[in-house]
């Protein structure tokens, strides 16, 4: 149809890039129009701009020429439809350290100083994301024009760093320093309207008005953002110290200084140098170079690469536009809602209208939590059709079964699904504990059957385990991985194994916590030990969060399926489940959840080997999975454990942590624990290889 082509046609000249340019320097195109020079960043062979060393040298070369014949104005923007620039070249960070890092940083700073010093108006036009070093280039310009939808962020803190190309002093100099520090300390994005409100951008407009907006800036027809009283007050060291103390207290809640040095380095920078940009610039360079070498930053960068590598596994085309989810419980609703939010057409099947209604309320809440606006929320909910009659089976490209963990019930549903699905569609089960090989027996088309194990809550937990049994076609696993990527989740393709990877590794950790409780160690002491290691929550809290009934299910199925001895299932766990105190969802488990999540504060020190008794069985299970080829390699283990469980990210993942501590030491310590506490600690043979 002609009508379907109209937008494609009109989109062809979407970005206003000035007149056709010539290659000015590596990665940059340059053109001049009416005395205004347009310098356009266009990194070759990449869908996004990365601010690499070449980009900065290219910019430097262009700026040197412009300093000789100064134009009326300089416009800097990106040629990539996706956005301005995604930040620095993180891959290169591993290659630089110490003195060489300082030298490189100084060179980079000199380029942006040159941009700042150019005697004509300099204007950054920003569409999409300007992150990290991209944001810093924009900050070195006199003016910023944001295209509606633009967003700005300094995500460096997530890599154990702070801004390193002048962001610390330029942003605190431009806007309310407390707001600037908050952006840098949290890594959160300032979306267009917020950026305007904060004074990051001078103008917000649409792509079609870029030329006119540039003209208005050049002609001096715009009012620069006003600088508030507050900003001036922070020129006083005393006031900065007061604010800094508050920031430190806030940071400690989420990132203890022992594990996360960067936020504190950043706060120090501003507290000491906040009234002296030159000194702050020098200090920023030294501080950044120091952080670059830190173990934390190395490991957090590793996490970044692990995410990229998991994402890459989902690189293909999923061929899935319609998903039918069976079972409107918390997981089914979470999966259906998330897929609908990410653009899939979803039918959610359940015979109970009440369950479907609760599911819709749950998804509406996810929309609110994800900050969707009213139109986005309406569209997501329109794409999600409650389906009490199961009309969705016939058209679905993927059917995800998410009913309770009952093998007979699942088998019955799989048979029904098989009969109603269209040829070529994939059937996936969200089981967390049942053996795929067993379930595959009642499936009409085993080649198109696999596990698709989401974690709770789906909207927050990024990992999805894709579990293949012996007869799963490789194409099926690939499409499921691509499906995960297309709904912004990270796929981990695994082989069928009791507990798969994540539950196999977590269960001994959770069970050992219960053994410890039975030994008389207070739950808060146990949880504190795990928190001190860097886990996002302690094992007792986690068990409550997962649901004690599910923990019991998984523990029992693992205990019977594995040769390796597991901790005995605590009678207290059974009692809790029988009493209906199943954890967070019931309002009470080991903790009382009626007033929100618990905040365990240790009242006493636990046994000397407490932390190892919790963590090492988890590492041992990971090693077992690796040895049994459940996973592809150690990196996949680390990525999966970090993105499914939040395993202390600054430690780089369980296998990386084990390697850092030494495989032989891990093995010896496990052997020691086995002698002391029982065979469940006996080290896996994998440590010897």
């Amino acid at each position, binding site marked *: 149809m002609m009508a*379907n082509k109209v937008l494609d046609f009109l989109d062809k000249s979407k970005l206003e890039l000035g007149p056709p340019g010539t290659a000015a320097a590596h990665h940059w195109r340059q053109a001049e129009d009416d005395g205004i020079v347009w310098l356009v960043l266009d990194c070759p062979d990449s869908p996004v701009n990365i601010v690499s060393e070449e980009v900065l040298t290219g910019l430097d070369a262009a700026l040197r020429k412009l300093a000789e014949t100064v134009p009326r104005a300089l416009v800097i923007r990106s040629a990539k439809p996706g956005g301005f620039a995604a930040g620095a070249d993180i891959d290169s960070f591993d290659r630089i350290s110490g003195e060489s890092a300082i030298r490189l940083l100084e060179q980079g700073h000199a380029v942006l100083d040159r941009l700042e010093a150019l005697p004509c108006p300099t204007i950054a036009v920003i569409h999409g994301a300007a992150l990290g070093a991209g944001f810093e280039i924009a900050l070195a310009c006199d003016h910023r024009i944001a295209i509606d939808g633009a967003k700005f962020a300094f995500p460096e803190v997530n890599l154990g760093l702070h801004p390193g190309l002048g962001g610390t002093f330029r942003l605190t100099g431009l806007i309310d320093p407390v707001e600037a520090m908050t952006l840098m300390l949290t890594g959160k994005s300032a979306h267009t309207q917020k950026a305007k409100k904060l004074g990051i951008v001078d103008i917000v407009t649409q792509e079609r008005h870029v030329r006119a907006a540039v003209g208005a800036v050049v002609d001096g027809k715009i009012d620069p953002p006003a600088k508030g009283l507050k900003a001036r007050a922070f020129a006083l060291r005393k006031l900065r110290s007061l604010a800094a103390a508050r920031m430190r207290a806030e940071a400690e809640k989420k990132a203890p200084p022992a594990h996360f040095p960067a936020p504190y380095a950043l706060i120090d920078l501003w507290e000491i140098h906040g009234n002296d940009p030159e000194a702050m610039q020098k200090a920023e360079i030294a501080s950044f170079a120091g952080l670059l070498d830190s173990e934390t930053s190395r490991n957090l960068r590793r996490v970044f690469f692990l995410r990229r590598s998991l994402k890459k596994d989902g690189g293909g085309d999923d061929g899935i536009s319609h998903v039918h989810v069976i079972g409107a419980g918390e997981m089914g609703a979470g999966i259906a809602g998330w897929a609908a939010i990410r653009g899939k057409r979803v039918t959610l099947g359940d015979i109970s209208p009440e369950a479907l209604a609760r599911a819709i309320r749950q998804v509406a809440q996810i929309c609110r939590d994800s900050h969707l606006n009213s139109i986005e929320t309406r569209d997501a909910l329109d794409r999600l059709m409650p389906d009490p009659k199961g009309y969705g089976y016939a058209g679905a490209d993927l059917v995800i079964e998410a009913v309770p963990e009952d093998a007979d019930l699942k088998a019955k549903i799989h048979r029904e699904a098989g009969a109603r699905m269209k040829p070529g569609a994939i059937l996936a089960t969200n089981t967390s504990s049942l053996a795929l090989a067993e379930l595959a027996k009642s499936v009409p088309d085993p080649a198109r059957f696999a596990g698709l194990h989401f974690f709770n809550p789906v909207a927050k937990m990024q990992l999805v385990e894709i579990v293949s049994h012996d007869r799963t076609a490789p194409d099926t696993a690939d499409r499921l991985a691509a499906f995960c990527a297309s709904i912004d989740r990270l796929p981990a393709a695994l082989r069928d194994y009791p507990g798969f990877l994540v539950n196999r590794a977590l269960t001994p950790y959770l069970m050992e916590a219960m053994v410890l409780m039975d030994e008389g160690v207070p739950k808060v002491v146990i949880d504190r030990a795990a928190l001190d290691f860097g886990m996002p929550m302690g094992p007792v809290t986690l068990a409550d969060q997962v649901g004690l009934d599910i923990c019991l299910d998984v523990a029992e199925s693992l205990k019977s399926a594995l040769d390796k001895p597991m901790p005995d299932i605590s009678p207290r766990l059974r009692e809790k489940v029988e009493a209906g105190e199943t954890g967070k969802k019931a309002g009470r488990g080991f903790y009382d959840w009626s007033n929100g999540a618990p905040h365990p504060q240790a009242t006493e020190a636990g046994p000397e080997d407490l932390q190892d008794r919790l963590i090492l069985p988890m590492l041992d299970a990971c090693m077992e999975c690796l040895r049994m080829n459940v996973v592809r390699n150690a990196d996949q283990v680390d990525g999966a454990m970090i993105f499914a469980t939040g395993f202390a990210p600054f430690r780089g993942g369980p296998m990386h942590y084990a390697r850092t501590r030494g495989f032989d030491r891990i093995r010896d310590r496990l052997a020691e624990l086995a002698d002391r506490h029982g065979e469940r600690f006996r080290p896996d043979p994998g440590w010897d290889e």
Partner: protein
Amino acid sequence: MTRAVYLVDGARTPFLKARGKPGPFTPVDLAVQCGRPLLARQPFGADLIELVILGCVNVIADEMNPARVAALRLGLPDSTVAFSVQINCGSGMQSIDTALRYIREGSHDIILAGGTEALSHAPLVLRREAVEWLGSLNNARDVVTRAKAMAGFRPQFLKPVIGLERGLTDPVTALNMGQTAEILAHRFGIDRATADAYALDSHQRLTQAQEQGWLEDEVMPAFDRDGNAYPQDDGVRPDSDMQGLAKPKPAFEPPYGKVTAGNASQITDGASWTILASEQAVERHGLSPLARIVDSEWAALDPSVMGLGPVFSTTPLLRRQGLSCGDIDLWEINEAFAAQVLACLAAWQDADFCHEVLGLEQPFGRIDRDRLNVDGGAISLGHPVGTSGNRIVLHLANAMRRLGHRRGIATECIGGGQGGAMLLEAV
């Protein structure tokens, strides 16, 4: 030889009684709620729908041309044309009639035709004086004129006009719809007890239909964002009895009138869709039609007796088809008012009326209550005005199929003095 046109499928929301505040769904929300499952159960993709026509009387400001908004929200392609139609209480049938003509003419093969109405969302309208006052306040450029304008405020400005009340009042005769029913009750001698008995029947029939699961494929449960499911029509009163129905005072012409809230249709929200297809489309996609749409007719008469619309539209339609009253196995006459339906039946049996007004030599005939509104109607279900015409055609097709009947008529009276009728034949 004209092309045959089939009603292949249809679905509606439960009809939800307006309870004094805006209900959970806007007109387009309602259309989406029942449109999604209807499209999901078709053996063809939604992109094969060539045109969307939607009847709606009270369009809300956020949903101008609700047909187009609904089409896009249902995931139909950008390139699908969609328009809305409005002929008051006949709008939902007007959409079917328009679709019928497009397909018969040969320009289209598959059309989605519906009706939607959220009477609980009918706006509160500011009084004209209040609007003028706001305008003068807006235009005041300086403090003095502003103060002057402020001083012009009168407390009655705060008293809004209920849009719904205005909508149910005939703008030409200034008669409320209920009053037009009073006129018919008087003229055709329908007393209060007969009207109440008719209403009681309506509730009992709908109750039975719900209990027997006869509405299973027709009514799609609706779900709101607050976690509520609406499985079925909620205005029905299974425990209704004659004593209860005798209680309410006349709603429109107290104290002597006969029309009460109990024997009038309910104010309700709801939507309904039908899918029409050509014979070629039926063959190509292997569809199994519910019925063939044979013919349709619209008629107009004095607004003060609008309730006789079914008589004026149905009579010429049957005459054109060479059919008589006895050839029709099943009737759906929209229950705007019990007295109004009963007046239509009386008129058709009145030899003088049939002779002098309809030009018939013999009385048209008697429509047995067993063949009329067999599963209840607007008195028990409610009457979302833009939807009802669609619902009665869809339900007629479903009921004909269930009961094995050959021919059926769906017909309604239309505020403003009109009537619409449609003839279906089993396939």
